Each structure stands twice: as C-alpha cells, then as structure tokens.
C-alpha cells in the first residue's frame, strides 16, 4: 500500500524551520516510515512540474513555511494548497510574516535600493534585476516582488497554524505524531483553523521568574543593564514580550535570561499582537505627566520593531485591505 505523501516548502524564510524539523532526531525516521516525502526542496530534488502533475489533495500533509514575498511564493502556495489535504502554515513566517515581514515597513524601492546600492554591494553600473530579460535563447524571467509581504493565511486557505521561529522540535514531534495517529484513526485532528503545536496562554505561564505589581519608571535594553536573574524582566524595565506571547516554548528565553521577543505570536483569540503589548506596557508606566511619559518611552528604542518583530505582516493594520493593495 502507498504511504501518505508529505511535502514541505520554504517561501520567504530562512530555512530554520527545515532544520527544526530535522532536529526532531530519530523521530524523523517515523516521519520517513509514515510518509512518502514527495516534495521538499531543501532536503531532496524535485520539480514543480512533478507537483503540478499530482492529483488535487494527493499530498496528505504539507508543512509550508515562509511568507509571500514574490509571485513564485504565491504560485507555489496556491499549487500546494490545491494538492494538499492538510495545509499547515509552519513557523512564524508563514503564520504572521516574521522577520521578512519587517520589510513591510519599507517600500519596494527602498528595499531594492538597500539591496543593490549600499556600500556592501559592488554594483558600479547600478544594475537592477529585470523581471524578464531577452536573451538569444529567448526570454528569461525571475520572480517579481510583491508590494508587501503577505502571510500564507492572507493568500490561501490554511488548515492549521503552527507558530514559532522556528517551532520547537518537541512541538513538531507532537504534531507529526498526532497526524500519524490520526491517519491510523487513533486520534482526532483539531478543528480547522486551529493553532497547533503551542499552548493557549502566554509565556508568563511557563516563566519561572518572580513577579510583583508592575510599575515602570524606565525602560532599558537588556545588553546595557544587569538584570536580576530571579525577577520578572518587565518589572526591571526590560521590554519582555512574554505577557502577550503564546506559550509552547517552555519560556526558553526568559528562563535563559533574555527577554521574550514574541516569536510564538499572540495568545489564543487575540486580534492584534502588538496592540496588546502597547496597551500593557503603557498601562504600567509610572507617570501621569506627558513629558515624563515621553521620557520613559524614549527607553523603548524601536517600539514597532519591539511589538511587531514577528507579527507585522499579520498585524491588524497591515492586514487591512488598503495596506494589502500596497
């Protein structure tokens, strides 16, 4: 009998997700045992046309990571959606844009200029990539950039969302395990649209640090101060995103002494991740004088970066149909 088919694809992403998958150690053998890997550009050779040739829904499980930076990404997203039973937005990039999504702070022009004219680039004739170029052999084309980076969910219908940059290996294990179980009819898959491989509360839930009433007189950058190892980082004025970030990572960063930067995205049911933090951080500022408040806020060097590092493309504001038009 033929094994269920497995695909994994990277759009605009860094490849960390693939490594995270391989990082599940010997469990990867179960994957191999349970699935026939039909398409996984990082791990094996395969051609788009092979996928195109497949029947709709032929792929059982597709872990799709990366955001929609160019038309190729979108094309493959639509293709894999069509061919897959279970389409998982895998990792922060696919779920909410992640670091590549930060490009949405800038216009295409700014992005291209930065890439092709900064001092680190040796490009004396100031050459720009052309989407299509006439060669003797005929026209050759390269993908063209989208005006803004979109998430997978903003582009195609997604069955499950699996947050994390990258998703924790133990969570991947669990999810893959669950799917295998389900295929063998031993388990029930969660309802469509659910967030899988993560908790439902926030990082604070798993964070071992002591916490008291919060009043912030000053924000500081962790590299510039000596943080108390026992005490809640936010109370010490270190902007820790833990309070708003979905748990599932076992509070790795705060436990290790670094503030949470929010790669697991918003908690269950939250509309806009950044808004939660803006509101929470501002609420506990210990001042009622506008000037003083501004002084304290100066300690937050890059607020939007702080609150939307992973979430910009997926943020409420940037999901706006107007913003999407780019």
């Amino acid at each position, binding site marked *: 009998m033929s094994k269920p088919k497995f695909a994994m694809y990277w759009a605009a992403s860094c490849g960390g997700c693939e490594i995270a998958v391989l990082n599940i150690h010997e469990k990867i053998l179960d994957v191999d045992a349970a699935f026939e890997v039909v398409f996984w550009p990082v791990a094996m050779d395969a051609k788009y046309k092979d996928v195109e040739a497949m029947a709709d829904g032929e792929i059982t499980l597709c872990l799709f990571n990366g955001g929609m930076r160019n038309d190729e990404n979108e094309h493959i997203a639509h293709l894999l959606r069509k061919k897959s039973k279970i389409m998982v937005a895998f990792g922060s990039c696919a779920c909410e844009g992640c670091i590549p999504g930060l490009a949405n702070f800038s216009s295409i022009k700014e992005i291209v200029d930065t890439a092709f004219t900064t001092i680190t680039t040796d490009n004396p004739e100031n050459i720009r990539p052309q989407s299509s170029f006439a060669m003797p052999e005929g026209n050759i084309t390269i993908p063209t950039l989208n005006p803004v980076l979109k998430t997978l969910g903003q582009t195609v219908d997604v069955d499950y969302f699996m947050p994390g940059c990258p998703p924790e290996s133990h969570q991947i294990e669990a999810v893959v395990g669950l799917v295998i179980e389900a295929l063998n009819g031993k388990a029930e898959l969660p309802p469509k649209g659910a967030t899988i491989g993560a908790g439902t509360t926030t990082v604070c839930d798993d964070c071992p640090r002591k916490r008291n009433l919060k009043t912030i007189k000053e924000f500081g950058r962790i590299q510039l101060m000596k943080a108390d190892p026992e005490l809640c980082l936010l109370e010490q004025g270190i902007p820790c995103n833990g309070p708003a970030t979905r748990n599932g990572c076992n509070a790795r960063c705060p436990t290790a002494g670094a503030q949470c930067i929010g790669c697991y995205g918003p908690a269950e049911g939250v509309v806009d991740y950044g808004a939660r933090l*803006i509101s929470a951080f*501002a609420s506990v500022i210990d001042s009622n004088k506008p000037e003083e408040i501004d002084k304290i806020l100066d300690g937050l060097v890059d607020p939007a970066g702080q609150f939307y590092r992973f979430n910009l493309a997926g943020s409420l504001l940037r999901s706006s149909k107007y913003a999407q038009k780019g």
Partner: protein
Amino acid sequence: MTEEPKPFEPVIIGFTCNWCSYRAADMAGTARMKYAPNIRLIRLMCSGRLDPTFVFKAFAGGADAVLISGCHPGDCHYVEQNYKAMRRFHLLKRVLVQMGIEPGRLKLLWASAAEGAIFAAEINKFTEEVRALGPLNWAQPGEQVSTPIMEEVTA
C-alpha cells in the same frame, strides 16, 4: 488611491467616555452647536477602555483619523483611568508613525461634560487638519517613518 471624490471627506472614528466627553457631545447637540459630520462616535465607559486594537481596527477599516477623548486629567469618573489612556496614546502614536501613519491622524482630547462648545470646535479643527492630510496613504508604508527612529533602528 489616485482620484478621490472631491472635496476629500475624511472619516473620523471618535472614542468618547461615558461620563465627560460623550456628555460633552450630547451637550453640543442639546445646544444645537454645528460641527463637521465626518466624525462617528463610539461610547466607551472610560477612555481607559481604549484598546489600541480599536485604533488599528479603525484605520484598517478605512478611517482617516481617530479621536480619543475622555475626562480632564484629575476629573476621571474612575479616579485615574484617563491617565492610562494618556500613556497608551503616547506609545500608540510612536508606533503609528513607524507604521506609516502621520501623528496628525490620532488626537487625544480632554473634554468635560460642560465643554460642548470646545468639543464641537475641536472636531471641526481636527476634521480640517485631516482633510489637509488627505486620505490615509497606504501606498508606501514606511515613508512617513520619522527619521530619528529609523536611525535608531538601523544604528
């Protein structure tokens, strides 16, 4: 947004608190003071209820500007909650600027229940300011990012 219906009529979403600013709006009404029809008010119990999500939602939904209004500092019906609104306003504004939304599109207004006239006048003023800014420009996100912040970021 190339051709706008002329003249450009901005849509402004206004958040008022139940006790002062909404009553100020009521008073403006009872006194038949006239102001621009561009604002559409939402009543909250307190400006402290103002969740930045609401502001993002309004902009995302096509509002050209957002007004946040509450009791004067010290007069909050809930003792001190309008101060929390003030703090959020200050941070929110910074984020919006980075998100490419001009600071002039978010306004904080303290109005007591007796200040119907001020409320009306401020709405007219705000409407004109926003009209001057034109429709929210989504074309080049990031272009209005104030340079100091960018420097900080890229530094």
